[in-house]
């Protein structure tokens, strides 16, 4: 802020530490820096950031839904690779997106440092002296008083101070006395807090991206999970994550309950788990629900999905059990029509594969068999049996949910309900023992979350101060009246100036003047 007397409206702008657009000077580096940290560049970069985010909502994104990206590739085989070269399927991880926000933050830092310095200086400095011609300002007034100028000003300064204005009283030439007052430094403080908090926010996000982890795991009721990397179905560590960071907790899924509306829309999910912080600590139980994760040792365990696992027993022709597992089936629709595979590579004369469709509530529709309600009210299993080489020893990785049936021989199909047994031609028997629930959990740890939350709170508080508080000045000058002016010995001039909210400022000015006149 410069020391000139604020008489014009442009001086009103100096109630802020906003940088002016002044890329001057000979040094090209300095010029570039000034340019980068000017308001105009900040504005441009903000607009660019908004624009750059748009394609991320119009094109499928790998981070959100890799399957849709793959579908886009097959639908647009010529265009997709080009878009991919431009990182348009990973917009929010793209180098050009990072370039925009990093430039913005460099600009922000460059802009903040001088503003912080200016603001600290402004806070320590006394309010600027009263301009000579107070009545020229838009918000101003005058009146006469019977007290001597010194008393008028002393009284005014007292009132202003009691309202937490910062004041300075000056004895001027020719017997006049003036008081200059300023208030609302919190506006600029809030604005600076807001911008610094933006930097904190970015730091917190970066921390999470560097040291966090997340993974998902499917657990059938009655089974357990312990937090080591090999237990996960999918595990995504961050760049600097190391396995020793995994806290050694474990849990078992004791019970899972889902309830539904009559139309099949889900009403509630509830997964009861018994968990231990470490293998030696006392077990506790917790209900994991949507919106209600289990927090252990800095990691959070979320319920993210559920489905049915079918207990299937396979016996050889002599009645020996060769397979007896709860096999998770994956849901295909909202009513939980599900598909799954059983593989029995050992213990039979031929390797056996079963492919099945499961209907928790069986219904026969125009489109064929279909589940008509998501709860297991009328569980029914359609099975097909296949014999031949399951290909498990080929060395090719195979999904547990897929059976490559092309090279296998179909040896029959059937429909089973719980408790029923199906006998194949070679004497092998398949029993659908019953249904259990499974749930998928996501385990996540993000060490930046706390910092992000603190930054977010500061962002809101800073904004509120920045947008609601008015930085304003008030001046009052009392001068001896010309001779012969009667009992009124003193002429008083007052003026007010604010950078924003002129309406609010004018009414505050009126109230203040009203009080000072009495």
């Amino acid at each position, binding site marked *: 802020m410069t020391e000139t007397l604020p008489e014009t409206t442009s001086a009103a702008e100096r109630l*802020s530490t*906003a940088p*002016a*657009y002044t890329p001057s000077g000979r040094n090209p580096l300095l010029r570039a820096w000034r340019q980068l940290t000017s*308001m*105009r560049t*900040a*504005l441009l970069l*903000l*607009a660019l*950031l*908004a624009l750059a*985010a*748009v394609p*991320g*909502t*119009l*094109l*499928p*994104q790998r*981070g*959100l*839904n890799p399957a*849709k*990206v793959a*579908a*886009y590739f097959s639908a647009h085989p010529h265009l997709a690779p080009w878009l991919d070269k431009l990182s348009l399927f990973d*917009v*929010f991880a793209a180098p050009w997106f990072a370039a925009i926000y990093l430039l913005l933050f460099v600009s922000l830092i460059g802009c903040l440092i001088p503003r912080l310095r200016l603001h600290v200086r402004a806070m320590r400095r006394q309010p600027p002296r009263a301009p000579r011609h107070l009545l020229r300002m838009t918000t101003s007034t005058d009146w006469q008083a019977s007290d001597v100028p010194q008393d008028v000003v002393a009284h005014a300064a007292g009132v202003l101070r009691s309202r937490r204005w910062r004041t300075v009283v000056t004895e001027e030439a020719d017997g006049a006395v003036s008081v200059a007052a300023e208030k609302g430094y919190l506006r600029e403080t809030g604005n600076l807090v807001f911008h610094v908090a933006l930097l904190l926010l970015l730091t917190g996000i970066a921390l999470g991206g560097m040291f966090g982890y*997340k993974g998902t795991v499917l657990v059938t009721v009655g089974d357990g999970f312990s937090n080591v990397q090999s237990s996960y179905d999918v595990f995504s560590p961050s760049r600097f994550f190391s396995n020793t960071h995994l806290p050694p907790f474990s849990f078992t899924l004791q019970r899972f309950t889902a309830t539904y*509306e*009559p139309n099949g*829309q*889900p*009403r*509630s*999910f509830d997964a009861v788990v018994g968990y231990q912080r470490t293998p030696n600590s006392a077990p506790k139980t917790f209900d994991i*629900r*949507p*919106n*209600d*994760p289990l927090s252990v040792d800095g990691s*959070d365990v*979320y319920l*993210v999905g559920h489905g049915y696992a079918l207990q299937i027993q396979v016996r050889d022709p002599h009645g020996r059990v060769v397979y007896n597992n709860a096999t998770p089936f994956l849901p295909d629709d909202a009513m939980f029509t599900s598909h799954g595979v059983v593989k029995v590579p050992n213990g039979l004369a031929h390797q056996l594969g079963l492919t099945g469709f499961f209907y928790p509530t069986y219904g026969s529709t125009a489109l064929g068999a279909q589940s008509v309600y998501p709860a297991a009210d009328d569980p029914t299993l359609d099975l097909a049996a296949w014999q031949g080489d399951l290909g498990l020893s080929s060395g090719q990785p195979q999904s547990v949910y897929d059976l490559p049936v092309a090279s296998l021989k179909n040896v029959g199909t059937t429909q089973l309900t719980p408790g029923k047994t199906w006998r194949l031609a070679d004497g092998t028997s398949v029993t659908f023992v019953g249904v259990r629930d499974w749930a998928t959990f*996501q385990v*996540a740890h*993000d060490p930046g*979350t706390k910092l992000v939350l603190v930054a*977010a709170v500061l*962002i*809101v508080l800073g*904004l*509120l101060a920045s*947008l*609601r508080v008015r930085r304003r000045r008030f001046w009052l000058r009392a001068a001896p009246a010309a001779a012969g002016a009667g009992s009124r010995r003193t002429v008083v001039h007052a003026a007010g100036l604010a950078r*924003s*909210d*002129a*309406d609010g400022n004018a009414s505050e000015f009126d109230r203040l003047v009203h009080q000072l006149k009495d």
Partner: protein
Amino acid sequence: MAPNLHLAHISDVLFTWTVFVYAVAMLGYAAEFAFARLARARGESPARSIRLGQAAVAITVAGWGLHISSVVTRGLAAHRVPWGNMYEFSSMVSLVAVTVFLAMLTRQQVRFLGAFVMAPVVLYLGLAGTVLYVPAGPLQPVLNSYWIKIHVVAAITASGAFMVSGVVTVLYLMKSWLERRAASVSIGPGTAAAVELREPAVGVRGNARAMVDGVARWLPSSERLDRLSYQVIGFAFPVWTFAIIAGAIWAKYAWSRYWGWDPKETWSFITWVVYAAYLHARATAGWRGRRAAYLSLLGFGCLMVDYYVVNTVITGLHSYAGVG
């Protein structure tokens, strides 16, 4: 719990009445404007038009009461908060817009905004009651959290206020265009007629021009309109910021991450950045005034995309980008 059909029906009836009463209020404000012009043309006192305006305010307040009752009965009927789908959401946003207008009225003379606020509100409610309407029903379990209340209330509040600021911004652009035209016209002699059209003009073009001039006279200065829209955005922006943060906290509980760049989150972010750009523009030489106003309208456009395009097109069947 099954929805209470009787209450749901009452809510629908109240909704219809709300739209009707708001429409009457809108006509009332328009009549105030028309009678004020007439009175001025005839040199009479504007007492009658002022009474009309006050009646329009009273009718607005009555409609507002009906509107609140409609929202409350809807919530009671569905046994949950009444902002779980686009119909309810649009109704709430309009309710906030009317509330913001009424709140402004208690503090400053902004009755001139009446017709301009009520027109989009009536239109919006009409669309909500026809195109977006769905019967009362329960929420998805994932929506069942107290963060949804905080997050959605904040988002709705900000959106209703952004809507009012959008209206004021459009008026600002109109007025500043007319002021510039008047300034350029009045340079020459004998051009006062363009600004001071007293006699009813002849012909369609004359009527249109008289209308525009009448509106221009009716509106306060562009500077005041600019300040007004800044005030409203200055209220809405921190609330919108808070809404995004509350949404992130909710997402952290519900989906295990606070931010995932899904289309909804991304458009909320874009909206936020554009309004931040607006606030910056107001502090940047060469960007104040009309350019800042365009940014504010752009921000409102992004908000509409966030609510309607994202919900219906982007996450729908036709696009690949959805999280679904």
